[in-house]
């Protein structure tokens, strides 16, 4: 096996996927052919994969099919599909579970995995049509499930949350499991205008990158005051010097609502925007408030078609503790899916849909009251379509004469009939 270009990637301190795959090629010959095809890509700067739809019966997603254009030359990778497996919330595993996945991956496929894919799934690479089915069966038998793809709800990734983070303002792992299980049908049987991604982060640090990469980010926040341990503040100020604290904590506050008075921190919580910076830097002394919940946002997406969008605020605060809270949360989600599902165009992400119909119309459609938290600022253009006055005109009077000046009332009747 000659791989002069790829061999160069075995050098260097960073772990080398080439080295790893070469080892694996000794056990699984298809991995050798995978490397040979990749070497050819490196030579020609050209890709040799074709994608198409292939599904497990009853499912509309979860399999990424790949056929090689060089199937004759490299028959072992002629079919080289990927299975998306729903990950464990928070990406936590036992070695026992992971070993099971390794076994299935090697028993049926190339024994290559990616932990994790962009959407959060576990990716298992290198199955042919037949083995793909068998592997799926083995996964499901052992309690694993396939992830989403296509125009459905996608697998939901979340941050580590309360499992190992003091900043988590709600149980991200629980919500991930709850939503995945509740809406598993929407995940497996795509019926939306386009994909719908949740990403869940426990606080504004947004470790799940939800703002720009999900249609519906759910981000932990709090309503009351930041918790301050003044003794810890004093220790921190003594250790770091007051000037350092002013330069790197208080003066970094986006709304300048935090002040250092001697060795005490004072916060004007009415102006705090939950940006997390002071808590991040002084996490020994500061912590999110106690009245915690989530902000639901909407509309983030990546570039394709209409350009980048970062999500915008939809529900500024929603409690997420009791079962009722969870149901209220889901009611909002379902109203969005109904409205977008009915009026969205094919291949139109929910953010693009909102841009097309207007946020005001969207709020009407999903039954949420406008709130100034939703905007960076109110409109600056004066072109407002006042409905209070348009409505009676449209419903009551005959439309054709409504905006015509009257000269002679009798003549107007003439063309009312035409």
């Amino acid at each position: 096996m000659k791989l002069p270009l790829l061999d160069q990637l075995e050098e260097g301190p960073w772990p080398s996927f080439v080295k790893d795959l070469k080892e694996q090629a000794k056990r699984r010959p298809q991995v050798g052919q995978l490397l040979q095809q990749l070497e050819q890509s490196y030579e020609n700067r050209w890709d040799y994969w074709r994608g198409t739809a292939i599904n497990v019966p009853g499912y509309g997603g979860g399999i990424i099919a790949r056929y090689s254009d060089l199937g004759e030359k490299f028959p072992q990778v002629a079919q080289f599909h990927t299975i998306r497996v729903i990950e464990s919330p928070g990406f936590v595993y036992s070695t026992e579970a992971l070993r099971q996945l390794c076994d299935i991956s090697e028993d049926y496929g190339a024994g290559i995995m990616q932990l994790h894919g962009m959407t959060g799934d576990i990716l298992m690479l290198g199955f042919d049509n037949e083995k793909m089915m068998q592997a799926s069966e083995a996964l499901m038998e052992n309690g694993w499930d396939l992830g989403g793809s296509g125009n459905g709800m996608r697998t939901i990734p979340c941050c580590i949350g309360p499992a190992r983070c003091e900043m988590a303002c709600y149980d991200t792992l629980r919500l991930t499991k709850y939503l995945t299980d509740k809406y598993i049908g929407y995940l497996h049987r795509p019926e939306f205008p386009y994909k719908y991604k949740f990403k869940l982060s426990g606080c504004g640090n947004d470790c799940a990158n939800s703002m720009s990469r999900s249609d519906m980010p759910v981000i932990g926040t709090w309503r009351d005051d930041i918790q301050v341990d003044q003794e810890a503040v004093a220790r921190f100020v003594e250790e770091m010097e007051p000037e350092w604290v002013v330069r790197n904590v208080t003066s970094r506050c986006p709304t300048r609502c935090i002040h250092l008075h001697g060795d005490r921190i004072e916060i004007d919580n009415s102006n705090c925007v939950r940006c997390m910076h002071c808590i991040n830097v002084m996490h020994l002394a500061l912590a999110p408030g106690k009245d915690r919940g989530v902000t639901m946002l909407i509309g983030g997406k990546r570039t394709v078609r209409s350009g980048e969008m970062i999500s915008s605020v939809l529900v500024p605060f929603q409690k997420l503790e009791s079962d009722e809270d969870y149901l209220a949360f889901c009611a909002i989600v379902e109203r969005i899916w109904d409205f977008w599902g009915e009026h969205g165009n094919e291949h139109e992400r929910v953010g693009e849909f909102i841009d097309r119909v207007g946020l005001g119309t969207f709020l009407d459609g999903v039954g949420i009251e406008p709130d100034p938290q939703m905007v960076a600022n109110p409109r600056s253009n004066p072109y407002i379509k006042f409905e209070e006055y348009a409505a009676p005109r449209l419903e009551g009077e005959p439309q054709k004469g409504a905006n015509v000046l009257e000269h002679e009332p009798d003549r107007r009747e003439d063309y009312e009939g035409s």
Partner: protein
Amino acid sequence: MDAKKPLAPRDNGAPDYKKYLHPAMERNYGRWKYHRDLRPGVFVHESESGESLYTVRAGSPRMLSAPLLRRVCDIADKYCQGRLRFTSRNNIEFQPEKEEDIQPLMDEISRVLGFPVGGSGHSFHNIIHTQGWLHCNLPGTDAAGIVKALLDMFYEEFTHENFPQRVKVSTSCCTINCGGQTDIAINLQHHHPPVIDHGMVSRCELPKVISICPVLAIRPDRVEGHDTVEVIEEKCMYCGACHAQCPALEIRDGQTDTLSIWVGGKSASTRGGPSFMKLATWGLPNNPPRWPEVGDAVRRILKAYQAGANPYERVGEWIERVGWKNFFAETGFEFTKYHIDSYRWARTTFNTSAHVRL
């Protein structure tokens, strides 16, 4: 293995994470008080119960063979009660039981896996990346290879925390740009409209191909008696949306595709809100297997960032403060007309003030 019964949807849903939580995590779920960094890649979380949980973060290349993964499991069994966790940037997190285990664990990670420990705090974080030539059907460049080349170059920066703030990097192998908003992004850039294989177009649904184009540049056409499409070259902006819909519209071109570098993206609402990344430089050759030009460009950005940023400033926040004029001056990248936005909301990027650095 014979299928025992016909394959049917099971709707198993997500695995039960509770089974996989480290015992210390389970005991202290939602009761964490604070955390401390012990050294790059190693930190401890303190619980209200007084219990401590140590974490050792190791960089992985995302792509792992089953045997390698089993070796990962062996280590977790030995030190971490058989539990482990992954991060969204493809690091593996080991949770040793005792502080004394940290060093032997790190030694073993290095010896057995060859993985570095780091990628936390104010370091060069692991690069999230796409599939590239290894497994994607649309890419114009590789992903894993660029990542390997870059992280070799910035290995020191991964294992140390010497930047003013964390540096997150992503790569994307086509303009679909799967990589997300990061401090520095390396993306593929096409330079001309798609080339149409009229013989193959018939396999695609023409109305869908036409409607996918964001700038209405695709029109129905007839060639030699067959229904096909044509592309209006002046309107096309080489986004490749049609290529994903219909492979007969080939957007890729090994000769002309180049790489571009984008800076200043951020997802967190920390301090200033999230921001998009902006074009820094373009036209870098797609040069496997080591892409040295890309590495140089990233190095230039990081050098300027390291020298100019205040503590806690992300790349985008630093540029916001010193201004784009200084960014271009300090990196030496040329500012061209291609840096000026021409797409939706382009006007909102123009400088509508007399705030000018001269």
